[in-house]
């Protein structure tokens, strides 16, 4: 099971996880990234590159599947306006034993952060908005998997 979803609407993390839990494996791991109130942020806005986004996320799942023995993996990413407190991204993986699911989950979110064509803008209560800068720490984490 390999699922990539780009969603304009609210993400339900448990939907994907329930699907992963039904694959017969003993291990399901997941990561949920949530829009955070980082100093007065009211919402974040996600722009993406339609077409390339889906291809990029699919190839991340292919790379994880080549590297670990997985029964399934999912990536759901929201785009558009996301209110603070709501999920922005959910990644998950299922495997027979736990090491594969845990490592694949970290791999998927780390690589997504540096490879998938999304751009994030923070909206503030005063009506202003600011593009978020990429972080060197994200590059460092992604390179652990090179």
């Amino acid at each position: 099971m390999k699922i990539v979803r780009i969603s304009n609407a609210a993400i339900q993390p448990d939907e994907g996880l329930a699907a992963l839990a039904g694959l017969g494996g003993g291990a399901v791991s997941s990561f949920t990234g949530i829009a955070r109130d980082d100093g007065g942020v009211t919402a974040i806005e996600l722009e993406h590159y339609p077409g390339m986004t889906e291809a990029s996320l699919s190839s991340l799942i292919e790379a994880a599947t080549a590297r670990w023995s997985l029964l399934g993996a999912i990536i759901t990413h929201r785009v558009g306006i996301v209110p603070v407190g709501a999920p922005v991204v959910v990644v998950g993986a299922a495997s027979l034993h736990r090491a594969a699911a845990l490592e694949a989950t970290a791999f998927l979110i780390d690589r997504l952060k540096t490879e998938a064509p999304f751009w994030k803008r923070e909206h503030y209560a005063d009506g202003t908005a600011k593009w978020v800068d990429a972080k060197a720490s994200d590059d460092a984490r992604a390179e652990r998997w090179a």
Partner: protein
Amino acid sequence: MKLVYFARVREAIGLSSEECDVPQDARSVGDLVAWISARSEEHACALQDLSRLRFALDQEMVADDALLGAAQELAIFPPVTGG
């Protein structure tokens, strides 16, 4: 070739996409970006610092020394910040 822009680059140029006829002597992504920079002050400003830009040819991430070949779409954007 179709040029597509995202995020800060899109805003600075004021367009999300445009068409261009690739000049004969533009062989790499870097060559083409230098040539696009001359289109307007906004283009020049948006594209002046290659180190802060990322590129995709036909929706595959590439470095600025990648050859254009027969690609039909060049995307120019800042480093990604999803997740």
